[in-house]
């Protein structure tokens, strides 16, 4: 059985999804990419904005989510942590 995603896993999935789309993504796309329900995503977005990991912008009438430098640095740190975890079997 697949392991339930932890909060940190969900945040990482969201931020990586934005990165993979070149640093900006539409909210609906993010919802599908990060495999989240609408209500769940809203809560996570609020949290990520508060932490300054992402910003919301408007471009030609469409809403986008962009990843900030703090968010990018966090992804790097999390990736290193996951690699550390895998290497040492923690």
């Amino acid at each position, binding site marked *: 059985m697949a392991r339930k995603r932890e909060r940190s896993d969900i945040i990482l999935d969201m931020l990586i999804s934005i990165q*993979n789309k070149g640093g900006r993504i539409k909210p609906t796309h993010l919802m599908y990419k990060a495999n989240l329900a609408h209500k769940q995503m809203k809560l996570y977005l609020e949290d990520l904005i508060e932490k300054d990991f992402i910003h919301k912008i408007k471009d030609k009438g469409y809403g986008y989510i962009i990843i900030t430098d703090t968010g990018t640095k966090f992804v*790097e740190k999390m*990736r*290193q942590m996951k*690699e550390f975890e*895998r*290497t*040492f*079997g923690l």
Partner: protein
Amino acid sequence: MIELIYSPNWFYGKDIIIDIISIFVLSLIAYFSIKYYKISKNKQYLFFAGSFISIALSFLFKVVTNFTLYFNIINIKHLGLITMTYNTIKSSNILSDIGFLLYRLLMLVGLFMLYSTYSKNKKINNILILYFIFVLAYFSKSAYYVFHITALIFLFLITWQYWKNYQKSKIITTKLLIYSFCLITLSQIIFIFIGLHTTFYVIAEIIQLLGYLILLLTFIKVLKNGKKKRKK
């Protein structure tokens, strides 16, 4: 009389440098483990960091004690006065007794903590094992090889755990980690024979250095791999 120095004269100080490198590698990994604990709140990270700190501290005590002993020997040679020599040796013996006891104790506690990170032992077993470590660290003063055999057993079990981990993950960094721990384990095998000839001490120290350098390389690779972008 218990022998305190196993190093040949020409190797004095060089073993201290090797131990300082080991302290640096261990402290670096412990620092990052604490950093990751702050992010994930996973207690395993804290326990892991604790084990590395304990081993690093044990090396620190070894360095300080060896430094004191080597310095005293140089001092004695330089002065060449029998009465002063006697006093120096006597005072340094007490210091070295405490220093080496803490070295042995912290090394075994650290290795046991590292082993416990992976084993699913019950609490009572852990308390019992800790008690034996304390007893063993104290009494291995007169039989140094007992300490090295115990360290060897712990290191073998830890390496075995990494091997099982590698069978599942098949990642290069875990493979490097196995090489590193194999060398550190091998150094303990050679340390058992240091009483026979001083050359064994030199070989063991060099192998230990190689082991910790590979551990450093593993860690650098972990950080580098983490920086690489992976498409999900």
